[in-house]
């Protein structure tokens, strides 16, 4: 009697554990089968309130002089932008050409330095830069105390 009962307990335990493990493995397999999904981006989903409203904006009618003036202004702006873009392309070309020339000269000077110059720069990445601001920071500005809380919606699969 003392021997029989502990043996039964062990058997039942082992079987239960094995069954549990198998169930967990099956669950794991099922979850792993499902492919991971990308988080939906809220920027590309238009909120419903912008598609449901019926109000339409009525623009004031333009006089022919005004529309003429606007068209001429647009043409001038296009020309200005084109000149700007062409100048940029020219600058890029000039940069690349001068770089190639410098490398050619370096090659003629010494092969070792040329090889070292061609190598990629490990310190270049990661590169971070903040964009320019409209106005410089105000001197002696005392910002009010506060905090920022992150309220992004967490998506789970």
């Amino acid at each position: 009697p003392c021997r029989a009962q502990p043996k039964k307990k062990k058997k039942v335990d082992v079987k239960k554990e094995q069954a549990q493990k198998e169930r967990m493995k099956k669950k794991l397999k099922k979850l792993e089968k499902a492919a991971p999904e990308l988080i939906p981006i809220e920027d590309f989903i238009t909120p419903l309130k912008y598609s449901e409203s019926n109000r339409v904006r009525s623009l004031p009618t333009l006089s022919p002089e005004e529309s003429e003036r606007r068209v001429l202004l647009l043409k001038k702006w296009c020309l200005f932008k084109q000149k700007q873009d062409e100048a940029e392309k020219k600058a890029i070309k000039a940069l690349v050409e001068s770089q190639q020339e410098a490398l050619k000269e370096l090659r003629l000077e010494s092969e070792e330095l040329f090889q070292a110059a061609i190598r990629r720069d490990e310190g270049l990445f990661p590169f971070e830069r903040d964009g320019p601001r409209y106005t410089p920071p105000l001197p002696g500005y005392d910002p009010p105390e506060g905090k920022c809380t992150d309220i992004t919606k967490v998506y789970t699969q």
Partner: protein
Amino acid sequence: DALLSCHRSYRSRPTHGIGKFKYLLPKEVPKKRKEKVQMKEINAGTEYQYGDVNIQMTSYDLCLVEHFAQYVHRLCNRLSIRVNESYAMPTKTSEVLFLEERGSKMQLDAVLTTHQRVVQICGLSSTFAPILLEIIQSNQPEGVHLLMKQHTEADFKSRLKSRPELEELLAEMS
């Protein structure tokens, strides 16, 4: 029924193929199966070429960052740099609260949304990289934060949804 069930083709006769009509109908687009999101192999790059590089642009202003991302993409196209992918990272919303002058309550100031766009390029040569960086920097608009770094698996994983159940099970198993 006898006409429809006839299987003899009579290929030598001029009446071969009589009764066919499917070639006249407009082509049906095959049903698009949901493509599984898989991670593409990350290119490490040789000594003279950088592998997969991510150009990440972050800002509070959506239109500005979107237009800048389009500009960078077109620039890479023009300079014949291969663009692997151009995607958007999920938007982060944050609440800004400030302490009132007379009082201990936090006052809600604004709700800001941070948008991020990523342009992934491949095969950037070591001599051209500084030039590209210079161009992008000179055209950087106000308030747009630029970040250029190598593409890693962690970057890809940050785009996917978290699976707490899977992680729990894995933790239990090991």
